[in-house]
Structures are given as structure tokens and as C-alpha cells.
């Protein structure tokens, strides 16, 4: 691939310098710390859309969550509880989520084909089976590209995950590194975000002015997109730095922190909300881990216990801030878990019949689409794949999934042309 093919000759590139100069103006709207107040967030909400994916890493059990089968030989010991939606029951480990059910749509007929962590993750995040010859971008990079604004302060694609549970991901592929996920490890700000000790604001500003001056002179005389991209990257780092407060959970009302919980996932989900409010287009928050081959039930008590309350708190917060209608929320894993309980009280990998939950922008809350049989071993009604989900995300956001990207002038459909949106859960 030739260097910079995504930037050259594109409206994106030509607009960037103007956008850079304009960014300072945009920052003023957002207040002195560059951070959105609830009122300003409401304003933003009217025009911008954003995405939150909660990734339950390892493969959450659909039988312990969205599609319980109590009293069957695959159901396990947990009960199904009623929810705010009459006729819809979910697992007893999600009592707070049950109260939010009017906002949540369930897809219970998912067949994602591959019961493998790596391949399953790729399938679920790219909306396609892996193909030779093309690496498809994740929904995060696609969202950042299609929904992001030029010169926006914060990076468009952020991944929050616990330390030791992830790494740098090649998730933007041909869309380019601008849309690749920025890792936020353990909820901490990106490494080296803050000025090193001994460097005053004044000294930093001064040295940066000289850097900028030299770079501008150089760029002007060489007239290359690459030099501009390089200079712009410093401007973006500075913009992120000016919003460094977004990473500081202690800036929240302690009551809010308590509602999400002080455990890792609670804090990370709260950070995710703050990132979305500050203008990040797509945030993925990973919760580790659900790969319960051994003692599936005990571990789901613990992990879903960590998920349930903050998830409900998040939906409430988004609604309170008027952001729920413009934020697509998806709860997914790379796969589900076997209906068959193994001899160590575990459930193993499973892709043939499992569930995903959605809420927010463009989603019909309370809708349930797809059915599995009594034991959960097969989809009996409205089977869908990750491609259908991918179309659904884009339609929910008001985007057209039948269009193409054109890396290197080669048309690549944004979503799998063999699939289409699950209209039953779209508004």
C-alpha cells in the first residue's frame, strides 16, 4: 500500500489544516478544561453520534445472561427473572439490567460460526468471516471514520481494558492508523500523556512553539501530506492532554463512582462514559474474563456481579445526559458457551446459538428477535450472523452499510454484502 493513501487527495486531508485552526474555537465551547458539562453534552448530543461496545472477553454464557433455560439439562442452577418488559426473562445474575430492559434489545439467534477466541473476536468486530487477501477494519475504526469530525480533539477510537488483558490491536487496517484504537490500559491515561517532572508548562509551550515553527517551515517547503500528518499528531496529543482530566474518575461525584462501583470494570465503564462525553466517537470497554471451562456458575456470579450494576448505571447516565438516543450501546463477546455442562461444572466454547444485547441510538428498546430451542442447542427462529449485526449497528447510527470504502481505489464494502440489518430491532 503506498504511504498515506488514505490521506492524500482526500477531502479529509485538505480540510485538516483548516480544522486544526478551527479546533481552538471548538474547544472554547466545551469549557475551560475542554470537558463537556451535562448541558454542553446535550448540545453535542444533538449533532454527534457515538458508540460504546462492552466486550465481555472470553465468551460470556448466553444461558447465564440473555437466554436462560432454567429447569432443563443445559440450564444450570440459576433462575430466570422477569424484567421491565413483560414476557422477557433474563438470568437471575442481572437484576439491575432486568430493570433497564425497556431500553435493551436482544438478539437471541446469533450463529457466529467460529468457537475460537481470536477468530470469533475478528468475526464479531469486523462483521465478517476472515478472508485471504483483505484485513477488514473493526467496527471501532469504521465508526471513528464515518462518525468522527475533522480535527476533533479526542482520538476517535479508544479501547479501555484491564492491564494484562489485551494489547495493541491492528484494528483499523486500510482505514489507517488515525482510526486505530488508542489503548487505555487499566483505566489509566495513555502512557506519557502528562508532562515529565521538571518540564514546566511555560517551557513546554516554548519548546513546542519552536518545534511547530520549524516543522511548518519544513512542511511548507516540501509540500507533503506526511509532514502535515506528523505535525498534526503533536497538535492532537496536546488536545488529548488538555482533556487529560477525562481520565480522572475522582472528578466525578462520589455517589456516581459508587453507583458504578470501585472495581475495575465499574471504573472503566465510568471512564468510557466520560470519554464519550469528551468527544471520543467509539469506546470499547473490555471486561475480563468469561472463559469459564471450569466452574462456570461460580465465576459467572462473580463476573456478572461486576457487570450488572455499572451497566445499569451507565444506561441511566446516558439517558440523564440526553445521550442515549445518540449513543449506540452493544454488549457482546467473541462467542457464547456450550449448553452442555462439562464434568467440571464448566461450559466450553460455542458459536452456534447465542446472544447479543443492544441499546441506544436507533435501537428499539424491549425488542427481542431470534429464538433458540428448549435446550439452547440450536437457533429455531431468525438466525443471524455477525454480518447482520454489523449492518444493524450502521443503520442504527444512520449510516449506509451498502456503501464502499476505497483503499487504493479498490472498492471494499463497508459491511458484508451477503447480510443486511436486523430491522426487527431498529427504530
Amino acid at each position: 500500500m503506498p504511504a498515506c493513501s488514505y490521506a492524500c487527495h482526500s477531502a479529509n486531508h485538505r480540510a485538516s489544516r483548516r480544522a486544526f485552526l478551527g479546533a481552538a474555537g471548538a474547544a472554547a465551547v466545551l469549557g475551560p478544561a475542554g470537558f463537556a458539562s451535562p448541558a454542553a453534552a446535550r448540545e453535542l448530543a444533538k449533532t454527534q453520534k457515538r458508540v460504546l461496545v462492552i466486550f465481555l472477553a472470553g465468551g460470556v454464557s448466553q444461558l447465564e445472561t440473555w437466554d436462560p433455560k432454567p429447569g432443563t439439562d443445559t440450564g444450570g442452577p440459576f433462575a430466570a427473572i422477569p424484567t421491565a418488559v413483560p414476557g422477557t426473562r433474563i438470568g437471575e445474575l442481572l437484576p439491575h439490567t432486568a430493570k433497564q430492559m425497556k431500553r435493551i434489545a436482544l438478539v437471541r439467534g446469533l450463529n457466529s460460526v467460529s468457537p475460537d477466541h481470536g477468530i470469533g473476536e475478528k468475526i464479531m468486530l469486523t462483521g465478517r468471516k476472515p478472508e485471504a487477501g483483505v484485513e477488514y477494519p473493526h467496527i471501532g475504526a469504521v465508526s471513528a471514520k464515518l462518525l468522527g469530525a475533522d480535527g476533533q480533539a479526542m482520538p476517535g477510537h479508544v479501547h479501555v481494558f484491564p492491564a494484562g488483558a489485551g494489547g495493541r490491536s491492528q484494528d483499523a487496517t486500510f482505514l489507517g492508523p488515525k482510526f486505530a484504537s488508542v489503548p487505555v490500559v487499566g483505566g489509566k491515561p495513555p502512557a506519557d500523556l502528562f508532562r515529565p517532572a521538571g518540564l514546566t508548562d511555560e517551557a513546554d509551550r516554548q519548546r513546542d512553539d519552536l518545534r511547530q515553527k520549524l516543522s511548518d517551515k519544513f512542511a511548507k517547503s516540501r509540500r507533503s501530506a506526511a509532514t502535515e500528518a506528523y505535525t498534526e499528531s503533536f497538535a492532537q496529543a496536546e488536545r488529548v492532554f488538555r482533556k487529560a482530566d477525562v481520565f480522572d474518575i475522582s472528578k466525578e461525584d462520589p455517589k456516581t463512582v459508587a453507583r458504578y462501583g470501585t472495581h475495575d470494570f465499574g471504573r472503566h465503564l465510568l471512564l468510557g462514559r466520560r470519554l464519550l462525553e469528551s468527544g471520543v466517537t467509539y469506546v470499547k470497554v473490555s471486561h475480563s474474563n468469561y472463559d469459564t471451562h471450569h466452574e462456570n456458575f461460580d465465576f459467572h456470579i462473580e463476573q456478572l456481579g461486576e457487570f450488572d450494576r455499572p451497566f445499569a448505571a451507565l444506561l441511566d447516565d446516558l439517558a440523564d445526559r440526553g445521550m442515549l438516543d445518540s449513543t449506540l450501546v452493544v454488549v457482546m463477546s467473541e462467542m457464547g458457551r456450550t449448553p452442555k455442562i462439562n464434568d467440571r461444572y464448566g461450559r466450553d466454547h460455542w458459536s452456534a446459538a447465542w446472544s447479543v444485547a443492544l441499546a441506544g441510538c436507533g435501537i428499539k428498546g424491549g425488542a427481542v428477535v431470534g429464538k433458540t430451542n428448549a435446550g439452547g442447542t440450536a437457533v429455531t427462529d431468525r438466525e443471524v450472523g455477525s454480518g447482520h449485526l454489523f449492518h444493524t449497528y450502521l443503520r442504527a447510527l444512520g449510516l449506509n452499510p451498502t456503501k464502499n470504502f476505497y483503499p487504493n481505489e479498490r472498492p471494499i464494502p463497508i459491511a458484508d454484502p451477503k447480510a443486511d440489518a436486523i430491522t426487527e430491532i431498529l427504530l
Partner: protein
Amino acid sequence: MPARCRAVASVVVVLALSAGGFAAEPLHARIDALIAAGHPNYAKEAAPVAGDAEFVRRIYLDLAGTIPSAAEARAFLDDTSPGKRATLIDALLAAPGYARRMAQVFDVVLMERRPDAKVPRAAWDDYLRTTFAKNTPYDVFVRELLSADGTDPKTRPAAKFFLDRNLEPNLVTRDLGRVFLGRNLTCAQCHDHPHVGDYKQADYYGLLAFVNRSFLFPNATAATAVIAEKADGDVTFVSVFDKTKAVGATGPRMPGAKPLDEPKFDKGKEYTTAPAKDVKPVPAYSRRARLAAAVTSPDNPAFARTAANRLWAQLLGRGLVNPVENDHPGNPPSHPELLDLLTKEFAASQYDVKWLVREIVLSRTYQRASEVPAALADVPADRYLVANLKPLSPEQFAYAAAEATGETGLARTALAAKATDAALDAKLAPVVAAFRGVFAGRPGEPEDGLTTTLDQTLFLKNGGVVRALTVAKAGNLADRLAKLPDDAAADALFLAVLTRPATADEKADVAAAVKGAATRPAAFGELVWALMASGEFRFNH
């Protein structure tokens, strides 16, 4: 002389040269003639040849993988001898830095930062450096890479191309095509390439047939695995586009060439060592053993062409066929005659890498300035009117940063008499590793073009490694500058970091910056940073 006449005159000269077969004209002159012929008004529109400052920085980066020290730059700039550029080129080609630079480039070309599982990094580095220091002919080098089976410890590093891909046949096939034949055949695994008529599924499987019988012995995970081969296993393929599901078959063949003649064996005689539990089989006839010869054969024109184009791209910042790995009739070279010439001459030179590199860098085309002339409204990407910018590789960036800030000098001083290149490299290894960690491509991914991710920018802006280089400490650049008067300091600063004198404006900026500063060394530390973080440093221009 009116522009049109000049253009006509140069065309006439070119015609005369090629018609007369005047072989005495050095290659670099013929390069320039063909480049000039490739654009109307070339002489008028093209930027002038780069000034000494730009040239010395560029040639050091390209041939030594680092910027010149201030002293080396000063010496070159002050030198008044007319042939100094050629002298410097020859000196750099003879120096160990050349082998190190080429080893770094070809490590990434051949291995794409894959983990070192079966051939340790040190052994591989050593092998590559030795290859380029000895100036092993390129075809010999490639034959070593494709014929080593890993059993002989002396030649095992050469087998890394196969071994550290776990000899996964499809991966090896794709990379054989990409690296050595300039063909990205990935799509052709499943069907004829939908857009490139020239890349056929039969081509893909013809390559695969060389390696499909080979496997790692005793298994793919053993760190000491070697390459073994069975005597059977034929390649068939079906196109996913073909509704009739017709099955194709092929023996080993280079794209566009005939399949190899293969011997037949009586049943029971296919092996010299028959396969058995824990026994490495040795077939009487090895398909893989024919790969090296087939790839580098004069009957496989793609080999020499891709090699020449790759070296051109490395030095000029853009291949004559661009991208290098997409050579096909639908993507013709920008200067077909030039590419043919380079190909022919490279082969005729017995694939002498150093010779070709030398000829390329002696050309005016290579030495063109990168600053766009004011009068030039539009800079076409492929006409070489202006030198292309090349982002520094992670290694170049690291070594240049260490040199610019005085870290290399400090290391040399610390080692004193024991300052061999190996010792110096060892001392700088942590800095190189840090830059690699942030700027290198992901394993198995191409590493071309500039990336500017947030973590890279923050590494430069606030990271500890860069700060430790720039901040004044005893004997480094910032420390030395602080002891000089402003004017001299500004010049020394720009020479050390950007390999050029400071302009009057820049001197004023430096003076202003240190004027209000609490401490001079701290102020100069930040100035060193500012220059090192600027676009002018980030690119090889």
C-alpha cells in the same frame, strides 16, 4: 535556449546513447538521462541538486542508517574538493555502517518483525550483516535463504525465512511472491485476482507446489526444528468463483513459466530415508531444492526486476513500480525503460548490490533537493522532479536521535579503547529497542509510510527515553551548547541535530529562547528536543 529546444536536445542525446550502445556512459548518468526524458521541461522544472547539508544528511542516513556526527558534517561541508560526494559515498559503502543499515532494511523486508522463535535475533543479524559486508551477490543471498534447511548450524540463520514462518505453506507462498517476485498473490489463493489479470490462481499454486511437501521436523513448535520434505503431495485448486468447481492442478512453476520437469520414481524408491516415527524423511527428489534456482533463474525475469526496483525504492522513496509488491501490466512502471535498464545492469553485474546502490546514489536524480521550487505548482508523485521524503525507520530514528543528542559520543567516550562497533551497538541497544517498540510495524504487517499514533507522539513529547537523551547531562549536546555563546551555540545546535547551519532567524529564536531561561543547560535541553521533534528531523529528505 528555449525550453522546447532543450527538451529536444536531451531526447536526441538519449537516442544517440541508446542507438550507439555507448556502454562507457556510467549507469548513474543513464539514470539521469532517462529520468529527464520522462517529463517535459524536466531540466527547467526539477529542483536543483541538493545542497551539501541536505546531501550529507541523506547519504549518511541511507548508507549508514544514522545522521553524520557534527564533526563529520562539518568536515564534509568545509571540504572544497570537487569529487567529495563520490569520495564520501565510497567511504560509507566501505564502512561497517553500510552492512548494519542494509541488514536492518532487509530484516524487515524478509521477516516483517515476526518473533524470533527458531532462529535467534543475534544469529540472523550476524548473517545479514556479514552478507552485506561481504557484498554477497544478491542472487547468491536469495539462494541461501531458499535452500537452507536449518540442519547445519553454519547455514541455519539463512533458513529463517521459512523457519520463522513455521513453514506455513500459504504464508510462505504469499511472501515468496511479494518479496522476491513483486507480486502480492494473496487474492489468488482462492481465485484468479479479480482486478489484476496477471495474477492467476495457477501462479499461486505453482509457487505453493515448491513448498507444500515440506514441513518442520520434528514439529512446528520445536525451537530447533529443521525443514524436512515428503516425496508425495500434489497441488490442486478450485476457484471459489467457479460454479463448475473445476479442479486445477499444477507442479512447481514460477508465475508465467512452464512447470518444472520432474523425475519419476518407482514405487519404494521415492525416499533415500523413508519416513518413520521420529525419523526425518529425505526424498530422492526435492521440490523445495529447486526453488532457489527457479526463483533466481534468468528465465524468471521478475526476480531481477523486483530486486532492482526494491533497491531503487529504498533509496528514492518510491519504486519505479509502485508499490514494489504490485508489479503487473495494469500497474506499469513510471519509467519502463529505466527499470529495464536497471534490471539488465543489475543482472549483468552478477547482482552486485553495492555496485547498484553506488550507481543510484551517484545520480543527480538521487541527489535532487527535496525543497519544492517556488515556480513548481504541482509535484507529480512519480516524476522525480523533487526528492521524495522518506520517514526514518525506527532504527534510523533511534540512531539519529542518539547521534544528534550526543548520546553516541558519550557511549564512544565511555568505551574508550574498547569502542568497537559491536560494543557501541550494545550500549545503544536500549534506545534502539525503545524506538522499535513504539515505531516498528506489527509482526507480519508491512512497514512503509509514516505512522503517527498517539502513543508514538507521546513517546516523543513526554517519554522518558527521549527526555533522557535531550536533557543536559555531562558531555552531551545540551550540556556543551550551554557553555557556548548564543550564536555559536545556535550553529552547533543546528549542525548537530539537523545537519545544517542555523539561519539568522533561527539564531534569533535560539537567543530569545535562552534569554529568559532560568538555567542555560535546561533551556538548551528543550531546544535540542524541539529540533529533534520537528518534521525536518523525522524525515530523510
